């Protein structure tokens, strides 16, 4: 969500303006009339990826945020812990999970074995196309999954 807008220079040379020191800024804040900051509903997006047996979570809204885990469950837990230290509690966290590779979907029985090693968490469709299995454990990369 890109809230930041860049506007054209307003003609003032900000390089020439003296900057307050930290102590001056603290003093200014102490002397200021206190207000409660009320912000509109906000949300940040967390994107999960799965590569080489590791789940990685990043966010386009929080620079520098990156969390990894051996399972999706573990990674989500770490994300929650990490972001709760930073985010305003009113901010909603939207999670985007790995999308299944279409090539691993099967619509007919007997399509053979699917190699799990390179799969980003996987959805296997049964022959009826209704039953789905989401494999999120790192152990998925160590075994083969038969599509029924």
């Amino acid at each position, binding site marked *: 969500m890109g*809230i930041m807008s*860049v506007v054209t220079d307003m003609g003032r040379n900000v390089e020439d303006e003296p900057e307050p020191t930290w102590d001056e800024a603290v003093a200014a*804040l102490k002397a200021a009339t206190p207000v409660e900051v009320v912000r509109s509903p906000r949300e940040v997006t967390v994107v999960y990826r799965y590569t080489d047996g590791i789940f990685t979570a990043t966010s386009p809204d929080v620079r520098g945020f990156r969390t990894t885990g051996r399972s999706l469950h573990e990674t989500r837990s770490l994300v929650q812990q990490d972001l709760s230290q930073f985010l305003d509690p009113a901010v909603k966290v939207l999670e985007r999970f790995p999308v299944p590779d279409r090539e691993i979907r099967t619509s007919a029985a007997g399509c053979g074995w699917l190699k799990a090693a390179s799969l980003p968490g996987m959805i296997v469709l049964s022959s009826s196309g209704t039953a789905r299995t989401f494999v999120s454990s790192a152990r998925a990369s160590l075994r083969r999954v038969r599509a029924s």
Partner: protein
Amino acid sequence: MLIVDESIEAKIRDKHFPLTAEDVRQAVVYGRVISAGWDDNDEHGLRLVVRATTYAGVEFIAYLMPANEGDPEEGTFVLKTAIPKPST
């Protein structure tokens, strides 16, 4: 909404390492605000002074000017500067 002028972005990057305007924007928009207050300065006019912490853990005080002087509480601000807390 927080408007960040390119010149302010450059100033913060150059003068207040490791702070960046984007870090400040994210913290002010999404982060926990420690405290805030209106500062009516003779030279600079009415400004919102905000103390918060970036995701990376850098505490700072930012000066925000209301974009609409006629309605300072309308909710749109222009970032004027941000001062990081000196590391001890």
